[in-house]
């Protein structure tokens, strides 16, 4: 960790040369439908853990940040198309995405979890989910994992444009289970009145082997265009700074009782 931080600090210094763009105005994007990480408030503004972290990073970088709300489906294409400069939307760092964009260091990490009625005998494996309807949000890590390991082998996957819609159908009984990011499910559903009577079924999935870990990801990072290496470096520096000065922990405690950074 220290080594990479040092490396990035050096990078940031060298990037301070003639061609470096000094990022003083940054357009950040989030989805606003992934509580508690990013939520659309009643007045239409973006709030949540992602947004607080983003604002803390901007304060650390002394940059002026504006937030853009973007549908999850079009997030990476819109970044590439310069609609905004960075995505802070609880996006997992995956190989597939790294082909299109760069990521900062992780700012938190989360396993996957199967959400079902409390006491449900279901487990997050093929045999247990045979013939069951499992809801995932399209294009997320849980979708990728379920598609890769379960699709056509027993569980029937139902894809939703928004995570909230999967919970709606889980509650109404259209789904037997939802398969989602654990922290998102914890903050966005299980601890809310709507999520009463629902719980994590079986173990949380961190990835049994290197291949599974590759799908689940190295954690959640901030996505930046491949060209903008200086921005990535500046964000990493700021991230290390708020981790060190306690600002990160302050924000984390606002949302979660447990550590969500991992090792």
């Amino acid at each position, binding site marked *: 960790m220290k080594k990479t931080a040092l490396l990035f600090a050096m990078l940031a210094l060298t990037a301070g040369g003639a061609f470096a763009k000094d990022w003083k105005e940054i357009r950040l994007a989030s989805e606003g439908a992934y509580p508690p990480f990013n939520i659309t408030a009643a007045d239409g503004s973006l709030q949540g853990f992602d947004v607080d972290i983003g604002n803390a990073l901007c304060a650390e970088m002394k940059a002026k940040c504006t937030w853009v709300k973007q549908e999850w489906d079009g997030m*990476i*294409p819109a970044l590439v198309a310069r609609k905004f400069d960075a995505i802070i939307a609880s996006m997992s760092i995956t190989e597939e995405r790294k082909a*299109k964009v760069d990521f900062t260091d992780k700012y938190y990490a989360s396993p996957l979890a199967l959400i079902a009625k409390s006491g449900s005998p279901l487990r997050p494996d093929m045999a247990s989910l045979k013939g069951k309807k499992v809801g995932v949000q399209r*294009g997320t890590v849980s979708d990728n994992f379920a598609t890769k390991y379960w699709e056509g082998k027993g569980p029937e996957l139902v894809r939703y444009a928004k995570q909230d819609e999967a919970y*709606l159908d889980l509650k*109404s*009984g*259209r789904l037997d289970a939802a398969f989602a990011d654990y922290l998102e499910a914890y903050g966005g559903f299980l601890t809310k009145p709507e999520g009463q009577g629902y719980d994590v079924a079986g173990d949380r999935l961190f990835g049994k082997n290197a291949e599974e870990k590759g799908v689940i990801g190295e954690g959640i990072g901030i996505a930046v265009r491949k060209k903008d290496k200086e921005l990535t470096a500046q964000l990493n520096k700021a991230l290390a700074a708020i981790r060190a000065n306690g600002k990160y922990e302050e924000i984390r405690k606002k949302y979660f009782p447990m550590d969500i950074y991992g090792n």
Partner: protein
Amino acid sequence: MELFDFQVITSSLPEFWRGLLMTLQLTGIALLCGFAGAVPLAVARVSKNRWVSGPVAAYTYFFRGTPMLVQLLLIYYGAGQWQWMQAAWEAGHPVWLLFREPFFCALVAFGLNTCAYTIEIIAGAMRNTPHGEIEAAKAMGMSRFKALQRIVLPSALRRMLPSYSNEVILMLQGSAIASAVTLVDITGAARNVYSRHFAPFEAFVFAGLVYLVLTFLLVGMFKYAEGRWLVHLAPRKATKRKEAA
């Protein structure tokens, strides 16, 4: 990055094929049911009795006055929200259980929507029946029902063809919203491919092409039908007119 990555499309052809079948089933069944309901309701719509035409007018006003996406979300998520409906699902009630299936919900929304538009199309064609034809039917001693059955409806159903072809095409395009309730139609397949490969251009260009081909086929079918059933309304040829004079 290539300009157009064909690999994205070729590797997803089975998914697009299933999406095509889904789109055809949805629009086909919705149009059939909608049309079957629209004929008797259109007769009610042109009735001079307010108690008969009023409810039909209210129905078409509601379904033509709100977006089909809103209607679909209302039926799908609305139905799932009620406690009594959830209880009926758990109890395995045969009718309400249908509303658990996204396919059925989409069919209800699309069928009711196209039915409303078709009623107005048929009713409009019926109102435009030349007065002379109705007077002639009366002079022949036909009852109202006989005149409706022999003169007004057959003529109206022919004259509605051009505007009905629009409704059919709009219905095909409108069915693209089925993916909002987890159905994987052509658009749903494109969305899946798009999010898997981050290739919006390839996925949606291909989906657009499929719709384009379907529309082309529909236009051809209606052109054939119009040539067959509307030929008596086409302008006469110049030579014939000379003979007549």
